[in-house]
């Protein structure tokens, strides 16, 4: 029996050991922004510093905040402006399955993934504001125009259509809010247009599911056989602060065009502060003109899967975390297709210590790039980061692999009339053209012929016609002088 008692005590001891430490730590009083004490780095009582809202300044009728006795943002109460009560907020939480019109009298709030389904047309009148809820993955608010559906987004230069986040304080009748900047990214998803035009896919599949949407939602499919497919019209549309992410590689662009056909009209589109690419073309044959991308997180203009349309008059303004201004891939399957990209001006972010390059031609890219003006990109030298001198990496125009170098040699990928405002430490325009393939090509030597240096943008003879972008939010906010 002695042994039994011993055995039990051992088991008991082990049980004790394993049951210990279940108690939670006592809760310490935590400094808050409403404890009436100026603590935790506050600059005033319960305001300012890293933890609390900025200290209030005297409310005005132009501060873009609903404060004081205002009934709305800067209107009503003691403000002279009467709040506009004609319109309201219309919540959009279900797919659009029949013809629908959105107008400038309302703000439309996108709640989650909204699809305009096959056969339906969504008409968006000039001046309409669409605000989207936050979230990522399935919760990301995106507007999808499925195959067979139409969008008629008919903005004008004076009354553009604005897609932005619910966090944006833009009001009815305005073209811009005041509380967000080009660095506020990923606050909602993006605009996705899917069509029936041919797409060159892995293993010659004829259709694909757009990234980030589960295959159980067949509204996410794009690609087909109709080159002239018509998905509608997108004119004078400004897309801001989007690009929510679903995971590595599953990225939502500002404007995603998957297999969109040449019957579709796309001109005067602006994308600002998107996490991922500004505008990405997955195959298709649509033509697009007057495109403006500012401060994207990844690439500004991205071409994939044998996109075969023409893009004219493009301006890219790089931001502090932007990657390539142009990222051009080719077909993934055996279906070929060549893009045409012309009249382009690329503004870099001088001396940017994180990467930010001019252009990357990759995989099997096919097409022509002409009349390009490049200015303000990172040159050669050093810069101080956190007290340490760090090498700058020259922003370049790159042939990334053997496939693309072979296409260059075969004349399937062409370059003409590039003008470069030389970055620091660079003496000749051809220095920024780099063939990184193993097979090699005459790309770097040819660069001396198809490119030249210019002193500044004013003396350039090529590039975009910037006056087309005078309507943009970017032009007005960043005082670009277009």
């Amino acid at each position, binding site marked *: 029996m002695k*042994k*039994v008692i011993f*055995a039990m005590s*051992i*088991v008991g001891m*082990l049980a004790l*050991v*394993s049951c*210990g*430490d279940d108690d*939670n730590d006592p809760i310490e009083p935590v400094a808050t*922004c409403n404890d009436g004490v100026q603590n935790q780095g506050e*600059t005033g009582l319960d305001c*300012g510093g*890293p*933890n609390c*809202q900025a200290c209030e300044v005297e409310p005005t009728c132009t501060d873009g905040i609903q404060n004081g006795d205002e009934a709305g943002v800067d209107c009503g109460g003691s403000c002279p402006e009467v709040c506009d009560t004609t319109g309201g907020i219309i919540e959009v939480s279900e*797919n659009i399955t029949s013809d629908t019109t959105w107008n400038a009298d309302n703000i439309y709030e996108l709640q989650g993934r909204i699809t305009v389904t096959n056969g339906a047309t969504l008409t968006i009148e000039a001046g309409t504001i669409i605000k989207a809820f*936050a*979230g990522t*993955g*399935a*919760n990301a608010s995106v507007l999808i125009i499925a195959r067979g559906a139409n969008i008629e987004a008919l903005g004008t230069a004076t009354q553009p259509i604005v897609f932005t*986040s619910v*966090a944006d304080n833009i009001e009815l009748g305005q073209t811009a809010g005041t*509380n967000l900047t080009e*660095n*506020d990214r*990923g606050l909602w998803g993006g605009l996705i247009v899917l069509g029936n035009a041919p797409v060159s896919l892995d*293993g010659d*599949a004829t259709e*694909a*599911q757009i990234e980030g*949407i*589960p*295959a*159980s*939602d067949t509204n996410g499919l794009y690609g087909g056989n109709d080159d002239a497919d018509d998905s509608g019209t997108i004119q004078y549309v400004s897309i801001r602060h989007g690009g929510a*992410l679903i*995971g*590595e*590689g*599953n990225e939502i662009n500002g404007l995603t065009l998957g297999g969109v056909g040449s019957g579709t009209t796309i001109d005067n589109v602006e994308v600002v502060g998107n*996490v*991922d690419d500004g505008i990405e073309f997955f195959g298709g044959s649509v033509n697009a003109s007057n495109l403006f991308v500012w401060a994207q997180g990844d690439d500004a203009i991205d071409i994939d899967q044998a996109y075969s349309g023409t893009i004219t008059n493009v301006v890219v303004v790089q931001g502090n*975390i932007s*990657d390539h201004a142009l990222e051009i891939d080719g*077909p*993934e*399957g*055996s279906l070929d297709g060549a893009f045409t990209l012309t009249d382009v001006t690329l503004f870099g972010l001088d001396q940017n*210590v*994180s*990467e930010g390059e001019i252009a990357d031609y*990759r995989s099997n890219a096919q097409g022509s790039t002409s009349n390009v003006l490049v200015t303000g990109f990172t040159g050669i030298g050093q810069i101080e980061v*956190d007290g340490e001198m*760090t*090498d*700058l*990496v020259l922003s370049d125009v790159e042939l990334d692999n053997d496939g693309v170098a072979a296409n260059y040699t075969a004349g399937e990928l062409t370059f003409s009339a590039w003008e470069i405002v030389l970055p620091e430490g660079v003496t000749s325009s051809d220095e920024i053209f780099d063939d990184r393939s193993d097979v090699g090509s005459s790309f770097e030597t040819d660069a001396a012929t198809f490119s030249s240096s210019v002193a500044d943008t004013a003396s350039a003879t090529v590039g975009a016609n910037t006056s087309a972008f005078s309507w943009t939010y970017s032009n007005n906010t960043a005082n670009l002088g277009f």
Partner: protein
Amino acid sequence: MKFRITFVFFVFLSIFYGSAQQGTVSGTVNDGEFNDVLPFANVLVKGSSKGTTSDFDGKYTLNLEPGTYTIVYSFLGYETKEITEVNVNPGSETIVDVTLNPASSQLDEVVVVTTASKNTEASVLNLQKRSVALLDGLSIQSIKRSGASDIASAVKSVPGVSVQGGKFVYVRGLGDRYTKSILNGVDVPGLDPDRNTLQLDIFPTNILDNIIVVKSSTADQPADFTGGVVDIVTKDLPTKEEYSISLGVGYNSTMHFNNDYLSYEGSDTDFLGFDDGLRDLPIQQSTEIPIPAQDGVTVRQLTRRFESTLAAQQEQSLMNFNFGFTAGNQYNLNEDGTKRLGYLASISYRNTTEFYEDYINGQVFRKDDQDRSVLELIDDRTQIGDLGINSILLNGLAGISLKTEQSKYKLNVLHIQNGESNASYLRQENFSVNSNVNFRDVLVYTERSITNVLLNGLHTNQDASWSTEWKIAPTLSRIYDKDFRVTPFLANDNGTFTISPSEAGDPTRIWRDLQEINLAGKLDITRKHQLFGRDAKLKFGGAYTYKQRDFVVDQFAFPVQSRGSNFSLQFGGDADQVLALDNIYALDTGEGTYVRRDSNISDTFDSEISVSAAYLSEEFKLSSRLNAILGVRMEMFDLKYTGERQDGTRLEDEQILDKTDFFPSANFIYDLNEDANKKVRASYSRTTARPSFKEASIAEIFDPVSSTFFIGNIDIQPTYINNYDIRFESYGEGNNFFAVSGFYKTFDDPIEVQFIREARGQFRPLNLGDAKVFGAELEIRRNLGFIPGWEDFNLNANISIIESQQNFSENEEDARRDNLREGETLDDNRQLQGQSPYLINFGVNYDNEDNGWQAGLFYNVQGETLEIVGNGDIPDVFTQPFHNLKLNFSKEFGKEIQHKISLNFSNILNDDIESFYKSFGAEDRIFSFRSPGQTISLGYSMQF
């Protein structure tokens, strides 16, 4: 805390017992006529008045003074058997199992005399011989001999059994969908969100009595198995007072005392196999997380709730160590010993440290899409790094049993607690979708636990012609990935590091919780009777299993808000800086890291399964040598699902499957000789394979670890399988055994998880075209005594050859055809995923009872196995054979042979564990690689 454990350790060591006492002889009397035990047989000590009878279970026990005896076993109408040279040692138990065969003529008295050492019918082999179904077993003795510490590594030596990923058992090339793991004969929940089956690596061998692998179905077995049922039988109660302790250490020269080992600061109770709450979800599911532009104050507060440790730290690794303690006894409650109460308690602890340098996992290579004449694969993603793993396994088993003249009751409680902490630092290079180099710190903590209660009763009538057995077993299991942290940094060309969501992803943390409740009940009634003038046995009964599974995912991302230059530059590539207080989103600067909820409602589900079964079977003799077992089982299967799709479609307790099916089975056993030592078995059965919880659903589950989507299919149907088996068996003297088997299985509408061609990285379960599996197994166990001087050597060898043919789905066939290389042709079918074309086990062991020495050399290998089915331009991945050679020595010593020291050398060939991409005409490329190194383990155990 660690000191407390060490203290307990020394308490064990300081106890020493030893006193002269009686010994026991115990065992089971089996019925040679019939595949059963023989109750009420007479057991007498020759030349004395001492004796007993076997109970209704066929079990007997004799308490005797130390010495050498002859014991006589008899039963009316049966041969009498005399076993000579039965040695009884003080305080120890000698096991003698015997089989009595029916006397050929009722008038003659036949006495068979044999010595105890030649009578060592291993109980498992005996079970195998007597079983009506085709089965293979593994006794605790042979597991101990092979030095395996968990069931997953032990079960590999059963013919036709392979283990994938060190955890999941495949029987005859059929994986979790077709192989069922049960505990003491009843269903227990699985521990993997993706699979039906149990992870066997968390079952330590010290709780085991034996493992039985049943390969042919009888009506009393559940219908949802095809490859086999792996039954984990926990320790039976001892027949005498018994205590033991064991201690062990293991040293691996590449993994231990290595200063490069990676780990991270965990909780105070990590060493006990669970987290004390440090890694609890800091934000409840109902809490809405605003974006900084809306409510910076709240976002900052919520972000600060997350623990800031994100980096894998280098520190010195420790050795493996383990210890265990068991106690058991049996008490007579009345004078004649017909009422007995027994108990058993066991507790064990194991702490294992692994470190893999230059570990490779999940590399991606593709076929050239544009040019079919290019055979070599193209780099898409390469990944290499170091991985440190510390795994704790703590388990306790407690049981009591009460045995009366006609009844036996048993209550067993088992708890297994496992905590695994992983830290890795990986370099990833991307070539395709993105072109970059990034570095990632990955910290993972996984808590697994199983609590199982088994209440079991067995009753017979006076003459044991009726017997009833019932079991009730509730089980609770949980697998909880607690705070899975991934912090990727993009390496820029100038040596700086940045967080880049579009290139490498945002820092991510995940909590993934799977809980399953399982309630199993079973009733079996057996009636012995006469049919065609011969003994026959009618069996009928029912079973009910209810399973409920809850699966919840909470995922968060940590984007970095910049205003001026890229804010993440100042982290300098140090993951611990990402959530350092100074770098959390601050309202005055508008910069810094903030939290964002990334989980979706479609990741979460709640399902219920119930299976009600009833069966009837008759075992009878068609002639004196031909035994037939015919039966039919009915099962009602019902699956209900609650969950929501991303598009808002919601199912609430929706019945997805409701099936009532009949499963016939027939087993025939023909004895080729009078002694029933040579048998031919043949069997047919119909079985089923059912979709798992998440397969029969509308769930859309994004797995951030593999960046893949799993999409449920509510139209999925169960698979039905026809199984045909034939086997020849020969039982020789002692442990000598020879068997050769063949099997053939056809599958209607087999389920397989298939990629979706138009959506890269998305998968869905489908009923595919028909499949078949066939193969052969050969097993030899032979004492080498025919070579003079080799009497103490035994040889064990088995070889299995398995071929499977799975027809392609339309999607898969198209994708394969479109990606054929020039000169390559498309086969009509492929092998099943996870099936090894061959399995080989070979072992020689030396066992000398006189000097107490044991030694064994064991070799195990699985053939090249399809691990991942290729997807379009991504080729198939094959696990490479791992040549596992082990050597063990042990020595028993002490007056009462109570001490034992063992020494074990693993992976003597120093082989690596590898998987390759294989494509027509191309050089193989590595999918995964790790080098387990060589481990030397030293163990000590003592019985008292």
